[in-house]
């Protein structure tokens, strides 16, 4: 395994990056790398396991969380740049039988 503590940012629209390093603790620095090879060093907030995500910018409560250039859920509270993003602060919007019916989903054709 590479010694560099790396986080991958896969699409320009994304506001999260995925950490591929073991044992990241709160306060550690990771290098966020995008598709074009640009890098940025960020301080991590929270203990982040291998393969989990951090925010690459501040994300306000209610805003979409974007990965692969697409929505993967909504922030349930304000999230700071560098903060651990997972089920504790990201809500899925699909298959939610516990939420009221939102009516027929519209489809682009």
């Amino acid at each position, binding site marked *: *395994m*590479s010694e560099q503590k790396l986080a*991958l940012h*896969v699409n320009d629209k994304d506001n999260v990056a*995925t950490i*591929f390093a*073991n044992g990241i603790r709160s306060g550690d620095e990771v290098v966020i790398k995008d598709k074009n090879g640009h890098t940025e060093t960020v301080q991590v907030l929270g203990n982040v*396991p*291998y*393969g*989990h*995500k951090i925010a690459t910018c501040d994300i306000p409560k209610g805003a979409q*969380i974007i*990965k*692969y250039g*697409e*929505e*993967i*859920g909504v922030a349930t509270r304000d999230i700071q740049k560098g903060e651990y*993003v*997972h*089920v504790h602060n*990201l*809500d*899925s*919007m*699909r*298959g*939610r*039988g*516990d939420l009221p019916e939102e009516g027929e*989903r519209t*489809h*682009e*054709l």
Partner: protein
Amino acid sequence: MSYEFMGYVRPDGQVGCRNHVAVIPSVTCAGDVASAVTRQVAGTVGYFHHQGCCQLPPDLDRVTETLISLGCSPNVGAALVVSLGCEGTDTERLVESIRKTGKPVRVIRIQELGGVSAAIKAGIDAAQELVMEISGLQRTPVGIENVTMSIKCGASDTTSGMASNCVIGYVADKLVDLGAAVIFGETTEFLGGEHLLARRAVNQDVARRIYEIVDNMERRARSLGCDMRRGQPTPGNIEGGLSSIEEKSLGAIVKSGSRPIQGVLDYPERIAGRKGLWIKDTPGREPEILTGMAASGAQFMMFSTGRGAPQGFPTMPVLKVCGNPNTYERMKHDMDLNAGRIITGEKSIAEVGEEAFQAVLALLSGKQTKNETLGYHSSIDIYTMGPVI
């Protein structure tokens, strides 16, 4: 560039990469007899499902049709159907439909033969004769366009969408370009990415059908009035970093590559010579999707995993591509290919993709997958829609 492999040419023109005698219980209640036969007779494998009685007629038809499709699949050289005698499936249609492919088919009926011990004896004798009949069949060179690959991801984590699914997508595009067929499924794992698939549909009818199967699956998931999380994504997915079904789906659909989507196959439906990229409407759980994919007539499956899924299917070899370098090191005896080298930066997607394609050619010509060598191949069940009554 054209590619060939050594396959078993069947009387109906399909080409198998394995040559099994399939023992097919027409109902779950015949499973124990079928199991005794497969334990005794080398060269046989069993489809030990749990369906076939006390279900609503559309489900009974679905079970009959799925068993027919499994019996017709090209890796099956001959079939022994084991009937109890009072099942809800249509055993006569099952036997006759498989027989139409030209392969040898036998049937035993437990109640008619006078019970379990008599049926086991008759079953062993019949299965032995079938093995003697087909085991001398030789492989011959055939073109890669005869291949149907099925694909799936299971026990996924965040490496799946960034490494192992990318490798499968590479192989899927290559096979489609070579004139073969590729089938992907896991309709639940389209939720959140269905618009990307619909954009790749060959026409608006196919796009509409993609949205329809996703809406139906989401309606079923919502029907118990709860948040789907823990069911999908699973606790393992969540521990692996996948936060929502949307994130899991967007990573999952990467394995379908980039080619146009020709249409949607129903669960028991066979590919029947059609080419290009297809969807099969299935859930994500292994037994049901592996069964649906084998029923399509796919000779093999490429299976991507991050956390380490060991499953296989009785007649369809499953090639495991592992995206997580840590998991690959831990589970080398279950994983066929290490795509974790993409995550560590050692290899590109295309480099591992080419290795995977060579592994596929070897598999098709007879090289065993890790799940086959371990005999870990009983992940089978038929996806039904209604209640057991």
